[in-house]
């Protein structure tokens, strides 16, 4: 198989030496790794198709990869698999100002898409924490969220079309530039969030929106988490939809400050980072009302970023939260249990109690406005007893999230990390429907097998 791949791609784009492939053994997920047989870098959709045909002939599993920043193990190699790294597909092909769309190859880094839109006075809102290096193909495959989900939604809400390569090498174009299109099933939606299990995404057609004219960033600190949670409910009840409504507990904000030095108040028990955007008069009015609501709910301090640069620095610091928490302990396990936003306060209370019960260190931050929390276990994978308690606590947290009408993963995907909890959330009917879809599109079970569900799972 290797010689066929070399013939197809050239020797420079086929890696097999241990020193070359060990660094592809993981993504951004803690404590998960695997070893690939080879790592290949196709340079075009046609080459991706040919690679899939070669792998299919040799019955070798294929794992798609962009920059390898995923947080559920989606691009961790299956043993003896072929890792197909799409970073050479790195061109922005078109920015259509008349239709407000952008067409990019899968390996384009999300930050570049944001900047290209920005340069044209347009806006691509999804902003996962990894956007400086994660690729748009990976964002679509995981249906990545970000800080602006509350007002702007997630990656799915911006995908108008996809080019995908199926397991047998067939190339399909799904969707188009039309705002309205009901011709048949919406197949592109099947591939958004499919985690490389149904096909390989090679091109993405994105919807852009006009740039908001102004932004206001606020920082409110609290002596109690409860007060922060009540402020969030009050803001939503006042019919204000901020673009960003982020929560950091004390542990998280101290780590972030330690790294970013943006002047976060390290004595506060909880902090809200709030951003409103839109017409200058509207943002001014909303910022003012939010300030009042914060004070009315026992905020200790309420501060407004003086300049757009300061606001951007605060948001950038928040994006580093997950990695910054790694300062405290050797292993950092990030979860993204998500609940309807009315249940956020209850969920945070439950996470704190669970941490105490199992004697575990948990840092919690997240997108309070959309109910997407990131309880983060700070532990040491060499300590088996503690890892067993982490496992137990995680199960309890997921079960509680489900009992509140939530989900086991809001934006990171199932991958390897959460597949044991999926069945409980979906229920038998929709779980089997998903497996049926998988079997139909990937009958030989070669596309990222073992992700989302186990291949040998009883029907």
């Amino acid at each position: 198989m290797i010689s066929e791949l070399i013939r197809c791609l050239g020797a420079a784009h086929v890696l097999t030496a241990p020193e070359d492939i060990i660094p592809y053994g993981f993504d951004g997920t803690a404590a998960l790794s695997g070893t690939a047989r080879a790592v290949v870098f196709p340079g075009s959709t046609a080459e991706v198709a040919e690679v899939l045909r070669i792998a299919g002939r040799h019955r070798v599993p294929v794992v798609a990869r962009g920059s390898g920043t995923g947080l559920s193990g989606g691009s961790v190699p299956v043993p003896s698999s072929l890792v197909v790294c799409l970073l050479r597909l790195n061109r922005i092909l078109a920015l259509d100002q008349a239709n407000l769309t952008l067409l990019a190859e899968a390996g384009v880094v999300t930050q570049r898409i944001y900047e290209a839109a920005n340069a044209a006075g347009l806006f691509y809102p999804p902003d996962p924490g990894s956007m400086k290096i994660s690729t748009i193909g990976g964002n679509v495959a995981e249906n990545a969220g970000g800080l602006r989900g509350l007002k702007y939604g997630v990656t799915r809400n911006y995908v108008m079309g996809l080019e995908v390569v199926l397991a047998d090498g067939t190339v399909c174009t799904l969707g188009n530039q039309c705002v309205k299109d009901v011709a048949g099933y919406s197949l592109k939606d099947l591939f958004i969030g499919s985690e490389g299990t149904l096909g390989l995404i090679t091109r993405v057609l994105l919807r852009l929106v006009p740039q908001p004219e102004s932004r206001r960033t606020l920082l409110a600190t609290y002596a109690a988490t409860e007060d922060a949670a009540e402020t969030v409910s009050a803001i939503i009840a006042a019919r204000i939809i901020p673009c960003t409504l982020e929560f950091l507990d004390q542990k998280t904000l101290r780590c972030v400050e330690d790294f970013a030095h943006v002047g976060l108040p390290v004595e506060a028990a909880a902090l809200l980072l709030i951003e409103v955007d839109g017409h200058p008069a509207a943002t001014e009015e909303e910022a003012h009302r939010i300030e009042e609501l914060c004070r009315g709910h026992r905020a200790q301090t309420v501060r407004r970023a003086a300049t757009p640069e300061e606001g951007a620095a605060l948001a950038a610091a928040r994006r580093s939260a997950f990695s910054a928490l790694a300062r405290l302990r050797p292993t950092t396990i990030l979860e993204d249990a998500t609940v309807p936003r009315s249940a956020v306060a209850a969920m945070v209370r439950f996470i704190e109690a669970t941490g105490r019960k199992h004697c575990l260190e948990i840092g919690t931050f997240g997108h309070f406005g959309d109910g997407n929390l990131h309880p983060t276990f700070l532990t040491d994978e060499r300590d088996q007893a503690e890892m067993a308690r982490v496992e137990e606590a995680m199960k309890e947290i997921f079960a509680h999230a489900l009992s509140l009408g939530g989900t086991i993963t809001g934006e990171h995907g199932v991958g390897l990390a959460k597949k044991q909890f999926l069945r409980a959330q979906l229920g038998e009917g929709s779980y089997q429907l998903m497996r049926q879809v998988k079997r139909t599109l990937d009958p030989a079970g070669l596309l990222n097998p073992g992700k989302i569900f186990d291949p040998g799972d009883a029907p």
Partner: protein
Amino acid sequence: MKAAEANALTGLDYSTLQQCMHCGMCLPTCPTYVETGRERNSPRGRIALMRAIADGDLAVTKGFGEEMYYCLGCLACATACPAGVNYPELFEAARFAVEEERVLADPGRDLVRWATLRVLFAHPRLLRATGRLLWVWQASGLEALSRRLGLTRLLPRRLRALEPQAPRIAARFSDQLIARYEAPAAPRYRVAVLTGCVQDLAFPEVNRATVDVLLANGCAVVTPRTQQCCGSLHAHNGDQATARELARRLIDAVDPRQFDAIITNAGGCGSHLMHYDQLLAEDDAYAARAAEWSRKLRDIHVWLVEIGFRRPRGRPDQPTIATYHESCHLVHGQKVSREPREILRAVPGLELRECAEASWCCGSAGIYNITQPATAAWLQERKLGHLRNTGAQVVATANPGCQAQIANGFRQHGAATVVRHPVVLLAAAYRAERGMGSSP
């Protein structure tokens, strides 16, 4: 986990390796990853290899050795890393393991390493004698003659490519420009100045200017004679034993107990000098003095800002446009970034314009432009492009390697842009002040 063979990586505290949670935040800041797009050429990829060795899943191989020397050691990743991974420690341990296992050994490389690390840069008098010979060669016209006659073609290919990159050696070294003790009328502080080795041979005017600005700010200055290399070259290239020996000798020559501060003006040296406490932590005879050394070691810019340096007066008619290139080991190694700019902004008539990728490596990286000429040249061109875009007439930078690399680049392009250390610009501003006073 298999039993790994004992080496510098298996001997590390494992949690130093675990600290990397491979989130990928380092990737866009790593020049070698940006060049190749390959994980092994990235910080987290290199750490993955180190961890594989510590786990016993990979031996210290030639491929691993080559990778560790492909890394620039610019430490941009250490600034970008939210998790606070101690990359400098991992990197030095990895290169040490590579040298211990001798996976890159070949007679030519061994000879060059021995001649530079163990002979030339371990013996200050020999280094200066060599510098003197090189100066005779460059200044007497022999160099120009040999280039005209095409004699440089007789050199091996790699040396020939490097020959124009050799730093221009100065006519007089620091000891001839600076007295052992110089003091202003009523000194407020007593400091020692470290003159370095490359700085001393190629840019002794930086050392002179360092003393001048210290004198102008109330510091009595001791400059010990014939100083030797601080050992940074050795520590960054896997020769820990010589690095420790050189640190002990420098502490003997400059007793930290006698000074309020020990001043360094070279980014690369400073980032090694500040860690003498860690380097000699297990040396009973030196640990206490090394700890005091690290407490008192100051980069010149930091010291000047700390003591509230005096802003020079004057307002030249024609402003000069300047930009600042950050030495990797000053910005990423020592986290010093604000102070040099503060000094540049204080120089009358200097307009500071920021440059894109100011904190990216210029490709000099110690001896990297000798060991990896292709990547070094790519980085040099990238850097020159960004510097040119600012329209600057003066590029300020605070490390001799960067100064030579950027100046050589401009010279090869026939550009008139000059490269200066910030304290050279500050010292000139103080001198211009005196000139104004005497000619009313």
